């Protein structure tokens, strides 16, 4: 079924309205203009009036242009031939490879039955102590990096992607700077991972609306591979651009905004994507690592705020480091009881003392007299930042735990750590270690 209409009733923002019948909600249409063709999706039906969201934007569309309904909703080809390929936000090749059209699958499919989910159980090792020790990443987790633009979030994403033991990496880029796109491509290539990667790239130069499909396409493909037994890591960068595209559409549609112009369903829209993360019993899994840039470094901005309510934690990247405060992995407790018995208590204990260090710093900056205790805290904080927070540190979890004890023993008496005596007896380093760590 493919009907052609050549009278566009109205054009506003990136939405056009045509009169047509037999059209279904969510169907695709192709619009042919003097500039080329673009896909469009049905976003509203009112009797014979059909509203279409045009992926390439409405600039240059004439009321006399041709609209052809495809009689189906958005689909993408699914096969092994996707591996190593690069596509744009509409699923068209961006590299020199062929168009793929076999084995089409729908995107934005139904949600996973909660009763079929299993409890996540595998730690994803990253070699970053702020992650492995303090906020362990878990297979099937959905977790964004919160940061302001300019921070090395894409570098962190790429590093984790290469280090994590996954079968497949899917990169969904939204509003990606061209340089960043090249960076990802090169890093994956250099790391020998490009052949097990699939890239869906919408760059900052592409029409905004086209970014809207990127998460759904990436996740639909990921879901199929996961059902086929693969461990898939999906990287989505930057979800704030995705949300902004939704905002733009909502405003053209004259929807009442709920908060700073964003539509009232922002939460549900983001959730339906992030909830695709899953560990499938007897098959593979989807882990989602995303980037959410925070306009004005404001975590209460609607995009990071809604994201935080959806995802299973977040990593705060600030000044090139993953901050201990605000960073959180909600799934860590599923795995950190099976790593080493001191993992959990050290994780909480060290952060508590780091918080006290911050207070001591504040005191110092206000010129108050520093007590003996404050001095200890300051020493601790400095060691902590150097040994744990610095992103150049790349060590296994066990080594990070040992370092934790070294730092504590270099700074404190046993009972000052707030840790249970039984643990201290077992893990407190001998004196020789103490002086060694102290000299570092």
């Amino acid at each position, binding site marked *: 079924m493919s009907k052609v209409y050549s009278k566009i009733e109205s054009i506003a923002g990136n939405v056009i309205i045509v009169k047509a019948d037999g059209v279904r*909600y969510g169907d695709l249409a192709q619009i042919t203009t003097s500039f080329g063709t673009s896909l469009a999706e049905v976003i*509203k039906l009112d009797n014979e009036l059909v509203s279409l969201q045009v992926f390439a934007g409405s600039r240059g569309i004439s009321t006399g242009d041709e609209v052809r309904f495809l009689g189906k909703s958005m689909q993408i080809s699914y096969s092994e031939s996707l591996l190593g390929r690069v596509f744009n936000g509409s699923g068209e090749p961006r590299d020199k490879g062929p168009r793929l059209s076999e084995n089409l699958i729908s995107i934005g499919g139904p949600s996973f039955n909660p009763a079929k989910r299993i409890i996540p159980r595998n730690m994803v090792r990253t070699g970053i102590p702020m992650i492995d020790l303090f906020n362990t990443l878990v297979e099937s987790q959905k977790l964004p990096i919160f940061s302001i633009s300019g921070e090395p979030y894409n570098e962190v994403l790429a590093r984790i992607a290469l280090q994590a033991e996954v079968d497949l990496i899917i990169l969904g880029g939204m509003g990606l700077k061209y340089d960043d796109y090249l960076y990802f491509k090169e890093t994956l290539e250099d790391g020998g991972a490009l052949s097990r990667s699939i890239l869906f790239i919408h760059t900052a130069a592409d029409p905004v609306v086209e970014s809207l499909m990127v998460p759904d396409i990436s996740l639909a493909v990921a879901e199929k591979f996961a*059902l086929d037994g693969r461990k898939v890591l999906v990287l989505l960068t930057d979800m704030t651009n995705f949300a902004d595209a939704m905002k733009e559409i909502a405003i053209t549609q004259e929807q*009442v905004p709920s908060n700073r112009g964003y539509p009232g369903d922002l939460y549900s829209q983001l959730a339906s994507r992030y909830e695709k993360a899953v560990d499938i019993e007897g098959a593979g899994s989807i882990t989602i690592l995303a980037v959410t840039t925070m306009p004005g470094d404001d975590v*209460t901005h609607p995009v990071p705020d809604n994201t935080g309510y959806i995802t299973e934690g977040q990593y705060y990247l600030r000044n090139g480091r993953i901050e201990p405060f605000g960073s959180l992995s909600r799934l860590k407790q599923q795995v950190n009881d099976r790593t080493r018995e001191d993992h959990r208590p050290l994780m909480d204990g060290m952060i508590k003392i780091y918080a006290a260090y911050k207070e001591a710093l504040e*005191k110092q900056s206000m010129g108050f007299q520093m007590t003996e205790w404050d001095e200890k805290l300051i020493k601790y904080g400095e060691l902590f930042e150097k040994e744990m927070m610095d992103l150049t540190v790349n060590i296994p979890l066990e080594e990070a735990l040992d370092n934790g004890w070294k730092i504590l023993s270099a700074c404190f008496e046993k009972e000052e750590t707030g840790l249970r005596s039984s643990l201290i007896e077992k893990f407190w380093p001998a004196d020789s270690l103490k002086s060694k760590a102290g000299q570092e």
Partner: protein
Amino acid sequence: MSTTGKVVAINGNMVSVKADGNVIMNEVGYILNGDKRLKAEVIRIRGEVAQLQVFEQTRGIGVGDEVNFSGEMLAVELGPGLLGQIYDGLQNPLPELAEKTGFFLERGVYLEALSRTKQWSFKPSVSIGDKVNAGDYLGVVPEGPYEHKVMVPFNLREEYIVKAVVSEGSYTVSEKIVEAEDSRGGKKSFTMFFEWPVKRPITLYEERLKPVEPMVSKVRLMDTFFPVAKGGTYCIPGPFGAGKTVLQQITSRHAEVDIVIIAACGERAGEVVETLKEFPELIDPKTGKSLMERTIIISNTSSMPVASREASVYTAVTLGEYYRQMGLDVLLLADSTSRWAQAMREMSGRLEEIPGEEAFPAYLESSIAAFYERAGIVRLNDGNIGSVTIGGTVSPAGGNFEEPVTQATLKVVGAFHGLSRERSDARKYPAIHPTESWSKYNGIMPVDHVKYAHDILARSGEIEAMMKVVGEEGTSLQDYIIFQKGEFLDVVYFQQNSFDPVDAAVTPERQKKVFAQILLLLATELNFGDKEEARRWFYQMRQKYLDYNGAEWRSDSFKNYEKEIADILQAKSLGTDKRAASILEDLKK
């Protein structure tokens, strides 16, 4: 003949339908789409066009699709077999759905909430000639740890005379168990289950009572400081990651109630799974049976359709009210009421209603109030007492409590457990803010005892704030000790390790014991030479208490720690605060 219609417009999950007959507000209609029947609810009627919110994704629906109106309002099935179930917001059993459709939730598949084949051993409690009214008991069946009362359907207005009763034995929920006649000779037969529209409160009781008896949660900060009463209401607002869900999860495990209903409303599916997988393995100390047998999960998580999310909290509370009719204490935990409010907002937007603050509909406040009003402790017609307690989390935008949902909720609840970002960042769990939270209910401790501790805490907070300005050196030793006392109370009593097998759940008995010792410490004048000595002493004391909190109740090590604690305190004691004299007197008893 029932009404039919045709789709004329689609916008998101709202579909407008031109009907060929009468349409009832809130009735259920089905949109015929291919071989699927998609469930929807009428939410506005304008002339011959009805607007329906569809409980499914609307992709693929077209103008002209046929619609069948059912004539029935959105309802749930009430009868034996609800306990231990996991349902979606419309009471579809999710495990059975999975058997049918696999990993994913297919559109348009609706299953019966109660098994029609399972046999229940029914024991009648009425005999021929008895007069029965709506809500009266007809007999009992054992269900999990309880005797499930089989009742006369709640929607019947007439009095009936029992004409026939089945004998004791095994029956399915759909078999006739009683035949009866009304005063005009109209015949009626009853099965073990019936339906009830979710948006109607069940009010078949003698009177509503004032909630006074504490609902024990075994969370120290709740039971001792901000208690909740059976039949009361409370809310847990907090920014993301502050610990709302974990707090509800531990409450759902340890609360001393008969039945817990968990409404996972628009939140993460993964969180439900933890409950789902763990509860069958955990033993409820009260009944000796698995925790799952006292639990019902309504799981309409964030990626499931928004309209059924809106319905899910009503489904949950209706099931709660049903078990209350049996004289049981029910606790409903809704996570998160903000997602429910947002579902209302989405619908209101599509209906193009005039928006209120932050685009929420004007009826937001009254909807929230009406929901919490369905809690309550009641005296039933047979004199028994039953209760529904409601605890809802609130997820305020930006973590700012000055927003419509939090504000509307605070107006109607009896206790407020506000979670603070500062406390959760510092890993001080549960992150209930100890000075901003409040409760209007009485707890397990005498009010003046709690007040004494609370006053020290408040004073300690003031001193801490002052110290930030004048430094430790500008603070007197006296004040410094009070500051340390407040901190001590926070660390060893407010903070509770929910992942520690012992500390996770503290019985009222143990709370009373530990709190008494803490009160003694707080009321003791301590003898220190300088601040450094004071600090060290308090750290040592903290350490002892942390070990003590982790020791099994009344075990040897528990007793040893108790003794050590008393000795350490005694060694520095200069006597006690005169204002605490009567409290300390109480404690001796």
